[in-house]
Each structure stands twice: as C-alpha cells, then as structure tokens.
C-alpha cells in the first residue's frame, strides 16, 4: 500500500500546521504492535515539522519524547519565556485597536470603504497604519503559537482595515488555515472563495503564480471537502471548473483520487442525478486523459468500469481501493460510503449491459454472499426502478431494456430549445 501513499506529495502543498493532523493520523494508523522505530520516525517527523513554530511546549515535549527525557530540555524554557514576552508585547501594541474594534459605537461608524475607515479611525481615535500592521504580525504570531481562533480574529480585523494588497492576501490565506484548524468549515469555505477571487483577479497576468497558488488552494480545500457535507457541492463545482481541472492535470494529478472518491461517494447525496451523471462523465474523461501520469486503485476502478468495461478488474480494484481509502486521512471516513456507491455503479452498469444475470455471479462481482446479493438486487430494483425480475428457480435476474422511443428522443432533444432561444433573445435585446 505504501506506493499509493500520497502523504509525501501532499506535504509539499500544505502549511506545516495543516500537515500536523495528517502526521497524527499516520501515527494512529500504525498497527498496535508496530516497532518503536516507526513510532519514533513519526515523532521525529512531527518534531521537524513544528520546531520552527512557536508552540514551544508541544515541541519541547516532542523533543523529550524523541530523546527519552522526562522533561523538555531547558532551551525550550527560554524559548517559552521569549514567546510569552513577545506575546505580551504584541498584546500591548494592538490592545488599543482591538479595544476600539470591540466598541459598538466605533464599529457602527465603519463603512465598506477601507480608506475612509482608516481615515476615520485616524482622525477620531489616533490609529496609525503601524498599529494596523501590528495586528497582522500579532495574528501571524498567534497562528504560529497554535492559537488559531485568536489568529483568525486578528487577521479578520486586520483585513477590515488594511489596504496593503499583499498583506491582505497573506492574511486571507492565514485566516483560511486558521478556520480549517479550528474546524470551522463554513468559515473556511468563505475564506477559500476569497482566496480564489484573489487568485483570479490579482494574479491574472502571472500564470505561474496562479498555477502554484491554485495548487495550494486545491490541497487546502481537501479539508473542508471531506469533513463537511454542506460545502461539498460548491467545492466540487470549484474543482470541476476549467481553471482548477487544468491545475489538477498540470501540477497535481494525485488529487484525482480525492476527486474521484468525492464524486462517487456523492451518489446518494446528489440532489439531482443529472449533475451526478455529469460529474461522473467528467471524471471518467479526466481519468482517461491522465492515465499515463497518475493511476491508483481508485482511478483504476473508474477506468476498469467505464473505459474498459472489465467488471472483474473493477471488482479487484474496488477491494484495493477500499484498503487505500481506509488508510487515507481524508478518505477513511468515507470508505464505507464509497464501497457502497461503487457497488451501485457496478451493478448499474452491469444491468444496463446484460439481459440476464446469474445472481450468484453478480453477488461475487459485488463482493457479497449469495443471500446478501439477492437482497442487494431486490433493493437495487426497488431503489432505481430498473425494469427487472428475479427468476428464483433459475437463480437469475432478467432485465428488460425497453428501447428508447424515437419520439421520446425527439422530445428530449428539443425540450430546452424554447427556453434557450428566449434567453438568447433576451441577451441580444440587452
């Protein structure tokens, strides 16, 4: 399974604070009887990861663990003192502004115009631009200390006031990370959209920066994508938008695993099956295109099922994919859903092609027992309203594929015509 481990690839595109949960998960994945070396390796990785941050206590503990000491080495005490003193310093320098922003009467006077706001604060309350920038530094510091909620607040306040585009962009990224780390998914998607807008508008003449920032954005977006169902649709739409699909294809094809999994597991949730079908179609196309660059059991499953129509292979890949999903930080919770949805896909496509199916065989295809398989098929017939009957004596399912009526086809094709023409004429009239 090691060859399919994406951790090394992901780390490069994540903030060190964001990598931490992944490492934590990797540690949790180790079998009970894992030797100390493996545990130590992960601890060491954690230490290396965090040693430049200001989370001195935690890093100190890690160091102690690494070296088998009871107490964190003394140097961390010094550091701790320093951090605390800096913290106080920052608090002091920003206290006035924070106070101001906490006051109802001040906030009430703020408008949407940043320049005017700053002017107002300067005139009325003597706020300087340095103080605003101090907010940014303090936010950065808090984030580095692992105090994400506070960091998010500070950065938010900074963003309201600052007119420095670069810093605002950085603050947005910072807030995005903070929201993810405080598991505030809705907030994080909000930030994500801001970042996305930023990339589209500010960097439009620098394709390379756009590409790398989009890559980052895609990686960060995995956190809300798999942890919050409500944001899933918007995020999937984002991933399927041309700019981001291109980014995935160009710089990080391994994201296809997540994208595929997200699409497949979205089966039961999708509000309308049309959208689901479309996403499925897209993902098939992309998997096919990228097959030479990236493949793992998850994409191979799609490939076997929809491109090669090799059901045996699909089944084999499905069981492999299940394993992979269970060992993946983002996907482990969706593994069951995935397998379930994948089975549905297999049987759907199988039934579409076949006129008569042996129940035993199908059950084996789906990786189920015979009785279980029968139940599955009954459910399938009921849920998807496939025109099929079970011949119990023969132990087969008989499908009835009515040929689609020509008239139905004509109606389908011309259905949207009127509406589209109307839209068109409206657009012309404008």
């Amino acid at each position: 399974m090691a060859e399919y481990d994406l951790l090394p690839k992901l780390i490069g595109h994540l903030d060190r604070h964001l990598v931490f949960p992944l490492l934590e998960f990797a540690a949790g994945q180790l079998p009970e009887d894992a030797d100390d070396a493996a545990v130590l390796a992960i601890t060491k990785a954690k230490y290396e990861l965090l040693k430049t941050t200001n989370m001195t206590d935690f890093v100190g503990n890690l160091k102690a663990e690494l070296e088998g000491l009871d107490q964190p080495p003394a140097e961390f005490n010094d550091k701790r003192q320093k951090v605390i003193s800096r913290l106080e310093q920052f608090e002091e320098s920003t206290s006035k502004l924070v106070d101001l922003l906490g006051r109802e009467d001040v906030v009430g006077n703020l408008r949407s115009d940043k320049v005017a706001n700053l002017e107002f604060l300067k005139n009325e309350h003597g706020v300087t631009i340095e103080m605003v920038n101090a907010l940014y530094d303090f936010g950065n510091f808090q984030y580095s200390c692992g105090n994400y909620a506070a960091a998010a607040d500070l950065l938010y306040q900074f963003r309201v006031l600052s007119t420095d585009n670069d810093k605002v962009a950085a603050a947005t990224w910072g807030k995005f990370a903070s929201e993810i780390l405080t598991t505030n998914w809705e907030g994080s998607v909000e930030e994500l959209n801001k970042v996305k807008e930023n990339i589209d508008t500010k960097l439009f003449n620098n394709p390379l920066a756009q590409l790398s920032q989009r890559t980052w954005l895609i990686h960060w977006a995995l956190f809300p994508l798999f942890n919050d169902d409500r944001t899933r649709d918007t995020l999937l739409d984002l991933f399927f938008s041309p700019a981001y699909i291109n980014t995935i294809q160009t710089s990080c094809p391994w994201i296809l695993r997540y994208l595929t999994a997200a699409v497949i597991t979205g089966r039961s949730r999708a509000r309308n099956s049309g959208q689901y079908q479309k996403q499925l179609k897209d993902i098939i196309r992309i998997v096919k295109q990228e097959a030479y660059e990236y493949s793992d059991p998850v994409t191979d499953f799609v490939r076997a099922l929809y491109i090669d129509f090799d059901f045996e292979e699909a089944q084999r890949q499905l069981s492999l994919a299940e394993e992979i999903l269970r060992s993946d930080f983002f996907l482990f919770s969706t593994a069951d859903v995935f397998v379930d949805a994948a089975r549905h896909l297999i049987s759907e496509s199988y039934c579409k092609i076949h006129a008569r199916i042996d129940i035993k065989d199908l059950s084996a295809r789906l990786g189920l027992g015979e009785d279980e398989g029968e139940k599955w098929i009954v459910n399938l017939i009921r849920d998807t309203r496939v025109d099929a009957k079970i011949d119990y004596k023969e132990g087969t399912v008989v499908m009835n594929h009515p040929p689609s009526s020509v008239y139905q086809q004509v109606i389908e094709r011309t259905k949207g015509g009127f509406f589209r023409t109307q839209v068109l004429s409206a657009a012309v009239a404008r």
Partner: protein
Amino acid sequence: MSRFFRSGDDSSSESSSEEEELYSEEEEEEEEQEEESEEEDDDDDEDESEEESSSDEEGGKKSGAARFLRGDDSESEESDDDAPKTLKSAKDKQFAELESIIDTIEKRQKINDWGAVSVEFDKLNRQAAKISERGRTPKLYIKALVELEDAMNETISKQKVTPKKMNATSARGLNAVKQKIKKLKQDYQSQVDAYREDPLDFLASDEEEEAPAPKPKKAKADVYADQVEEDQEGFATVGKGGKTLQFTPESIFKHLRAILESRGKKNTDRVEQIKIMEKLLEVAATPYQQIKVLLTLVSARFDLGSGGTASMPLEHWKAAEKEISTLFEVLESNREYIVIENAEEWDDDEKPPTLQPGEKYIKIPGSIVSYVERLDDELTRSLQSIDPHTSEYIERLTDEGSLYNVIFRGLLYYETLAKDTSLQTPQDSLNRIVMRRLEHVYFKPAQVVKILEENAWKPVPADVESTITPRGSISDATSLLNVLCNYLFVNSEGIIRARAMLCQIYFLALHDEYYKARDMMLMSHLQETIGSFDVQTQILYNRTLVQVGLCAFRKGLVYEAQNTLQEICGSGRQKELLAQGVMIQRYAQVSPEQERLEKQRQLPFHMHINLELLECVYLTCSMLLEIPLLAQTGSSPDIKKRVISKTYRRMLEYHERQIFTGPPENTRDHVMQASRALAAGEWKKATNFIHSIKIWDLMPNTEEIKTMLSKQIQEEGLRTYLFTYAPYYDTLAISTLSSMFELEDRKVSAIVSKMISHEELAAALDQVTSTVIFRKGVELSRLQSLALTLSDKAAQLIETNERTLEQRTQGTANAFDRRGGQNQRGGRGAGQRTGRGGTRTGGTGQRQAGGTQFTGGVLSGAVRT
C-alpha cells in the same frame, strides 16, 4: 577637348563612307574594328557617366573639325597599310612614327597639356600594338611608358600640393593617361621592371629578346574588372618603387582596406582577392593582423556564394570552415583580442591598435555568429542542390560534423564573452548560436548526437568550459536537448523560443515520449499563433506535428495518430507542407520568384521524414477508424454521415470502382485491399495485407508494431463484424466470436459491453449462456430518422447562436450560466492549460476521446507565402 575629339573620331570612323573607300581590304577593317573597341574602352574608363548618345550627337556636329584632326590619324593608318607589302621599310616607318609620337608626348607633357598627351598616348598605344603584333614590343615604347608614368606621378604629386593649377580638360586627360598606364603596365610588367632596374642595359640588350606577346583582347567587362583591381594594387606597389615582393606584414592593412573598399562593387574579381588574402594570411605576423585578415577573408569567401541560387564552391566552404576554426584558435590563444559586433572600426592602417590603459580588450568589429550562421546556410544550400542519392551527398554530409564543431566553438566563444558583463554581449547572438546548435541536433537519434558531441569536445582545450552545457555533465542527448531548450526558454522570446520548443517536442516525439511531447505541444499554445510566424517556423511546426503523430502511432494510439496527422496528410500536400519537395502546380500561378523561394526552403534530404511511411501510417490509422464507422453507418444509413478522413474515403471509393483489382503493388494498394477485407470481416486477410507492407521495416521495433496492428485489426474487425451482421442475427455466442477473432472471451465481452454501453449496438448480454442478444425492431422509419435529424439540427442552431453571441460579447453577457458546464467551458477558462481538457471538448461534449487532440497544420501560411 580630347573627349569631343575622340567621340567625333569614333562616329566618323563608324559611319563615313570615305573611310570605306579608303580601307577596302579586309585586313584593315579588322584592324580598325580593333581600334574602335579599344577606343571605346578608353572612352568608358574615362567617363562612365557621360551619356553615349550625347557624345555621338556632339560628334556629329563637330564632324568638320573631326575630319580635319582625323587626317593625321588616318595617315598613320595609311602607313600601316603599306606595312605588309614591304616589311622592312614598314617597320622602320613604324618606329619613326613611334618616335615622333613620343616626341609630341614629351613636348605636351612639358607644357602640362595632359589633354593632348592623352590623345597622343592613344596613338602611341595603337602604334605599339601594331608593332608588337609583328613580334616584339618596342623598347622605345617601354621607355616612353615608364617616363610618362614618372612624369605623371610627379604631376599628380604636384597637383596634390596645389590643387587649382590644372584646367578641367587637362585633368581629365591626366586621369585617362593614368588609367591607361596602369592597364598597360600590367601587360608589360616584366619589361617595365627590367627597364627600371637598368634603363640603359635594357635598351641596349639584345633585340631578339623575346617579349611576351600582349594579352589577347578580353571581353569588355573583364578588362574593366582587371583595371579596377589594378587600380588598388598598383597604388600599393608603385609607392614602394616596384619591388617584386608585394606582401609584407606592414602592407597588410592597406591591402585589406583596398579589398574592403572594392567589396560589393560590380565586377570585382573575388577569387583574385581571396588569393591575395590567402597570401596576406601567410605573412600576417601579429594576432591582430591574423584576425583582421581572417575576418575579411571569410566574408570574401561568403561573397562568392551570394549571387543567385548557386551555393558556395566546395573548396571555399572547406577553406572558410578551416579559417573560422583558425580564427577561434587565434582568439582563444590571444584572450586580449575579441571580435565583437559593436566595436568601433580602427582607421589607422599604419599602426595596429594597442591595449589602452584601463581597457581589458582590443575590440575588433565583426560578427562571429553571422559567420557561423552563414557557413551553416551555405552547407544547407549545397546539400539542397546535390542529388541525395549520390555518394557526393554523403561526402558533403560528413562536413556537417565539422560544421557542428564550428558552431560549438562559436558558442564557447560567445559564452566567454558573455561572462564579462562589461562587454555587453547581446543576448541575441548567444541565442542565435544556441539555436543553430539545437537545429543540428534535434532531428537526430540519441546515439548520433552523442557522437557529435564527443567530437565537438575533442579539439577544445581542457581549460575551456561551457557554462550552458558543461563538459561531461551532458552525457546523453535528451539532457543536452533539455539544457539547450531550457536555456532558450529562459533567455529568448518570440520566434527563437517557439523554434526551441518545437525542436524539443520533435526530439521527444522522435524518442517515443509521446505524452511529454503532446503535453508540451498543447501547453505551448503554438497552434493558435503559428500562423503569424515565418514560413520556416511553420514548416518546423508541421514537421513536429507529423513526428508527434508518428510517435502516437508507434505507441498504438491510433485515434490520436490519425487526428494529429489529419491536417497534414489529409491535405494531399505533404510535400509542400513539410518542405520536402515542390508540388507541380497545375495552374502555373507561381512566379519564378516564388518558385525560387520555395526551392530555397526545401530541407536537405537527410532531414526528411519519409513521406511514404507517413502516408502508410496515416492510411492505416484511417482504415482502423473508418471501416467500423462505415459499417456502423452502413447498417443504419440515416445516421448523420460522419467522415473522418476525406482522403481515405476518396481512395477507397476509387479503389472500389475498379473493375479488376490486381495484387497490391504499392503501399496504398495494400491498405485499400486490407480495408476491403476488414470490411468483409476477414481480419486475417487484412492483417496479412498490412503486414506485407515493406515500409514498416523503416520503423524501429517493426515486430512490435506489427503485433500492435494485428491486435487493433482484430478488435476493429470484431466491431465491424458486429455492425455489419447484427441485423442478421438473433443471438450470438461470445465463444463463437472469440474463436472467430482469436480474442479472449473477456476481451470480446468487454468490447461488446462497450458498444452496448455507448449505444452503438442494440443488444444485451446474457450472462448465463454468455451470448449476445440482439434487439429487434430498432430500425427507424424514414420519417422517424428525419425527425431526429431535424431536432439535431435545431439543437445545433441554438448552440451556434449562443456561441456567436458569447464571442461577440466576449463572455460578458452571462446569459448562459444557468445551463451550467458545457458551454461555459467553451468560451472561458483562464487556466494554465486551456488547450487541454476543457476548451478543446467544449461545446460538443460527446466527443469520445475528449480533449487530447490538437489539429492544424499551418496550411495557408506555409503554402501561400
């Protein structure tokens, strides 16, 4: 006055009837003709700008005076007349005449009437010529010549001091005399030298001494050429008092200057100049002299090839190559001298430039990169003109190795220059030379490149290092290509950058890196802009496209290969598009100028892509795609006819129309017969036909390709069979199919499943009995299919309208957002790789292979311009 004089003289001798009476004998007439032409020559030399017609006119008016003056002239001729009869007396007479003329000259000369001197001198020459015809050149004449020359030089030097002294006629006369003397001096050089050594001795020496006969008359142009040349040369030699050793290190610059000045002028004898310079090179002592001579010499050699379409002579090319190498050596061993484009010309011929305090280099103006480029171009030109099937071509091709070395040395040289930022070497030169190097590498297989590289490094001194391609670090061709291209990507722009990209793609495709090549091709976005590049680049683009297509074929990606090759091969103008031959124009609309340009663009044979192989690949791919499609549309004739390759269809139709088909002879026949067999479901026969095409042997891994092809034929055969015969079956066992097409059961069911799933086949599988059950009653009535077509058309119309509107409004009218997906992708997409995925498939959505193709040979541009 002399001018009128002579022109009058001319016209009268031409036209007057009197003269004809006078000279009735043929001999005389010949003589006169000679005179005339000589006179004419002089005339031209004297004053070219004077119009012939005006002089004639004036001559006509002045005929009276002319006749009078002519008298004395004709008298002398009359005396000639007698000469043949009584040889002895005639000779004396002639000598007497000569003496008298010399006398007159001396007199005139004393009073500085150069106009008269000039006239007399002409007479003298004529006289002398007559005498020398009979044997030897009169000593008197030589003496007069030398004396006159001395006098002339004296006058010239005097004149330099006091420029106002001479009137116009005299000045013109003086000039004429000067010119004539120079010309004559060449003829009588040895005698003149002898006279100068010891005048008395010369005059006294034996009468029988063989004098060299005067040179036979040359064509007018030649005479002039000589004269001009003598002009310069003479100037240098006379100054040194007629020393036989002409070339000394000190005089090098003078010679060079003279040559440089004559450069580009009409009728310059370049070969002669080159010889002079070769001698100069031998005597050149200092590096500065060497460099200067080499620079001039090389450009003079290139001048040889500049006229018309003819390429530079072989020996000169080789010499130029050697000289450039020598130049590099000189420059490498004398680091303080640099040749650089933006240096200033050193005007002082007397002393060479010295190292100024505070300056690091002695800069010499010149452009190494253009020499290298020129050398390269000349080789290409000569390769173009040689028949590629001769051994001569191969011999010539071996020179490419040395050329590559020169390019490489040039690159090293520019790198050393670039290291010193104070020189401000233009990046452009470096780019150009890197590009040249790249262009000699990109189309070659890796092994060849390796040898080329090794040879290039050999002559380079060990202490020289290349920053772009460090010695030893570039072991294989792929990384070399990579390094060179990356260098150009970073440092250049526009055409060079595009060319570098194309070269790299070509190389990748040649080495079976299909996906890399394709991705680069797509990411380069060249297909959108290629139309605006120059023809050479467009040709390179076409070549690259073809190479990518061939690469896809070798990978077994038939669909991609066909798609890529479509534009080039489907046009039927492969030859033109790849610059591998000129098409015969049916309607001769091309001007000779265009034709010449076209010929110049042709690639040398060793760079050609085999057109027959190309055609074979294209047709085979088309067959594999078209035959199942034909079968599919054939069974339900109302499906919209989709044509993949028109060329292929046309050939197939033509082939089917034939009443009698013999055994296949050429590639095309093979493919066509294979197509028919495949259409009939006889895949084995088809495979045999395809395998018996000989040209596959040209592909590396022939066997693999054949296996790939038979596999493809099996699969497509199965599909064709199912399409063709489905209406006649109720059920078909998978096992029957698998035994028929020798495929695995699993593969067969996979293919059938795919067809069912894509709704190409109205059938279903029965898993229990493993058979295919064909559904009945799916055929549509005429009305039904027409209704379907109509609805399709309507949908298309709406689609087109929407797209047009979107284009017009540049996507600002967000009217179509609600429809989601499809159309948006067509219009927008600010992403990195819009060429990839999204945009390409935009709008259609149904296209199966989606997004991986790019099309477009640069048809219009490459052909028309």
